[in-house]
């Protein structure tokens, strides 16, 4: 793949707007001007594409080993394919109330990642008061760790004998933690 060219997007937009990017007050990590800074300086709104992405969930029903299953696929980021490792995890509700993620991994980077399978084991949702949010030791945070370390960007949850609502509840927790780009992937 080609090497990135000189000039961040913010600098290029600044040129288009006739601004000196160096003169724009920057809020970037290193003090540089971000796209938002440039556009704010120019009195332009932030484009919709600049808003954080929301995870998408797609439900599919099927049958596996004679049991009805549901698959919930979550795509939350858009990294180039080469960097994107796809993790498919089975979310089981057996015994009732318990969630166990069993990794089914596609992609060499994730497959070869040491200790990955263990990281996918989570505790029952209801075992953590208040859900999975915020707690460093929560199961969801473990998923977050995976995402950061491996660059995983897609998580598929497959749960047997569970409900769509149950999956949505878990998804909500993931949204607040590992799939929020401000807190997780970025």
């Amino acid at each position: 793949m080609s090497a990135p060219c000189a000039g961040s997007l913010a600098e290029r937009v600044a040129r288009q707007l006739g601004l000196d990017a160096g003169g724009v007050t920057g809020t970037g990590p290193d003090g540089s001007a971000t796209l938002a800074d440039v556009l704010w300086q120019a009195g332009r709104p932030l484009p919709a594409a600049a808003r954080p992405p929301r995870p998408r969930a797609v439900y599919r029903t099927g049958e596996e080993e004679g049991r009805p299953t549901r698959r919930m696929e979550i795509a939350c980021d858009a990294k180039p394919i080469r960097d994107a490792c796809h993790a498919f995890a089975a979310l089981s509700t057996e015994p009732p109330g318990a969630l166990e993620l069993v990794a089914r991994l596609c992609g060499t980077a994730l497959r070869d990642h040491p200790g990955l399978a263990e990281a996918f084991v989570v505790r029952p949702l209801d075992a953590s008061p208040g859900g999975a949010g915020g707690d460093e030791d929560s199961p969801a945070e473990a998923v977050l760790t995976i995402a950061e370390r491996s660059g995983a960007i897609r998580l598929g949850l497959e749960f047997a004998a569970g409900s769509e609502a149950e999956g949505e509840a878990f998804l909500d927790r993931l949204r607040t933690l590992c799939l929020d780009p401000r807190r997780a992937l970025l």
Partner: protein
Amino acid sequence: MAARIDPVADSPGPARRAGGPAPDRFAILRELERKVLWLASWTIHHANHVRPNQDGLKVGGHQASSASVVALMTALYFAILRPGDRVAVKPHASPAFHAIQYLFGRQSRENLERFRAFGGAQAYPSRTKDEDDVDFSTGSVGLGVAATLFASIVTDYLRAHDFEPRGGRDGRMIALAGDAELDEGNIFEALLEGWKHEVRNLWWIVDYNRQSLDSVITDRLFGRIDDLFRNMGWRVETLKYGKELQGVFRRRGGDALRKWIDDCPNSLYSAMVFKGGAAWRERLSRDLGRVAGMRAILDEFDDERLARLMTNLAGHDLEAVVEAFEAAADSDEPTCFIAYTIKGYGLPFAGHKDNHAGLMSVEQMDELRRRHRIERGAEWDRFAGLDLPPDCLEEYIAGVPFARAGDRRYEVPVIAVPEAFPVPGGDRLSTQECFGRILASIGRERSEFADRIVTTSPDVTVSTNLGGWVNRRGVFSAREQADTFREEAVASFQAWAASPRGQHIELGIAENNLFTLLGILGLSDSLFGQRLLPVGTLYDPFIQRGLDALSYACYQDGRFLLVATPSGISLAPEGGAHQSISTPLIGMGQDRLAAFEPAFADELAVIMRWSFDYLQRGRAGRETPPAPGLPGDEAGGSVYLRLSTRSVEQPVRELTEATAAEVLLGGYWLVPPERGSDLAIVYAGAVADEARAAHEAVRRELPGAGVLAVTSPDRLASGWRAAARTRREGDRAARSHLERLLDPLPPGASLVTVADAHPGSLDWIGSAAGHRCYPLGVDHFGQSGSVPDLYAHHRIDLDAILDTIAAAVASE
């Protein structure tokens, strides 16, 4: 006006119908010749002077061009042709062809009445538009002629592979060509290729009327034609003088008359033909009056008979024509008949240099009607005005071997295509390399599918990655040819042994030949009852070199897989001459040709697998393919793959069925955009790396931006237009794949499109759902350089994409 040639004058007349002996073959053929001339002329007249004219434009129809071949075609169709023969009729003889089919009962009066009108008999014989028995579509002169040569090669190929052609092993491929048609360069390209492949069972009948569209052709062209064909190993039969003239030549003064005609410039001869008997007398008296015996000849013939004598050319003499054709039938040598004729023979403008587009006036047509003894209202009667009783003619026609052939469009079973093609592995691959590896893997299989594939290339077999296939399946040749380099132990990756069992037809570097051959290979099921799966390769820029032949191959519904590679500016060091710009637009615009430009190996594998199925659809009652597909997919067609030698990074993924279906519909989100996002990068083909790199570069600040992979601008556009049409017709809910793809993007969102091709191949996408388009592409001739040089020069590199994204953001 002086007396003119009039074949009807020889007619015995109604008084001699009854009570005589059974008519001989030539008496019947002459009657049919008269009727073909009448019907062809009347069909054109009806279209121009009888049928209401809706737009005030001339309809046309080429009465003169039809008239010059009436005897040749009458002899062919009613005396010579066998069921296995296939004929390319010169385009301007279409009315004569339809008239013959009408006499055979294979053309309707309704269609003749609508000649050149919507839904009626076509101006030029068409396999796909006409209802009668057209073997090869003609119209762009030269292409039909060459098609017969390649049909001859195809029948040899079929026989060599034990795919017996239906209709008989001895079918002859016959072209009826105009003399001016031989000016077309593709004729000569084909001739040389035919010599290499030792063509046989091939007849080209040159209608040597010495007139072109504009005027009279160069004198003594026949000599050059004669030499040319003999040099190519053909037998040449010249049909110059009719029986009556030959008889006069044997008389005293005959030699001088013959020499006079032989030396007569084409223009003078044509002018004299037009002027008629009195003019002939005056001219011959002046030039030959002192030749012993000449006066007696001139005195013996009145003006009308003299005109007939001086135009008694063999091409209008049924006995001479049939005799020549029958004599040639005992050999499979390729044969060129140079048949002397007169343009407009039997019509009032015979010989006039301006007669090509000429039409008889109402008065002239009335006079012709009178001469043909046809009552008003009986113009379409199959046998009105003829001397022999209809039942006699009907009986003869029913007994003609060609008429007994039945339906000559064959239906054959579909060849099963493997469920999936292997996806070549590797981190960085080019689509050209993947094509070669997929085909080579097919070549390793023992299957009917692999056996029915035939590849061809105009001297770019190796450089388009067909080598692996050829190594396994061999080069086709009428006879065994050793691979000398291998026998001499000279190392080479490429085996080049040729044999009758080979499955690759190597052509010289002539793209017209490639497309003409592909078209005929792809008609093998319908023409010869044996299905072949043709694959042709060439460099993408040279599609334009043979574009007319490609269009005709599609027009007559030949089915083939065209692999054009490299494309775009891949051949960067070779400069603009070897770089293609507008070919995706050809892919979008060419009917019956589905065009794809994949970027990745897995996309290509899916497309190739689909292609071999698509080639076979719409014939032999093939069932409608399962959804999803585009409207019209069930009819099938040919496929064009625009590939590249540029390696791109391959995705690590297992292509899902859903994505594979999207690949075939023309595109999918490589990176889905966030719903409501106002930016997407849209790319096609070899610039995938640049598109993905650009996305990566802006991902942090524009995380909602998507990347749309377009695998087929052609099919995306087709689907979009089809949905729009369906909505106009009342189904308001109809939506195309493209519109569904673009759903997440609100109106006004920006699309940055990029292709190593003319930007017009993608920029139309902005119209589909009201988006703003920022097109990047190549829109002027290329030049030498490296790929990075040229990508930067043409502004399709990463820097250009990022600048364009910035411009889009800045203009919000």
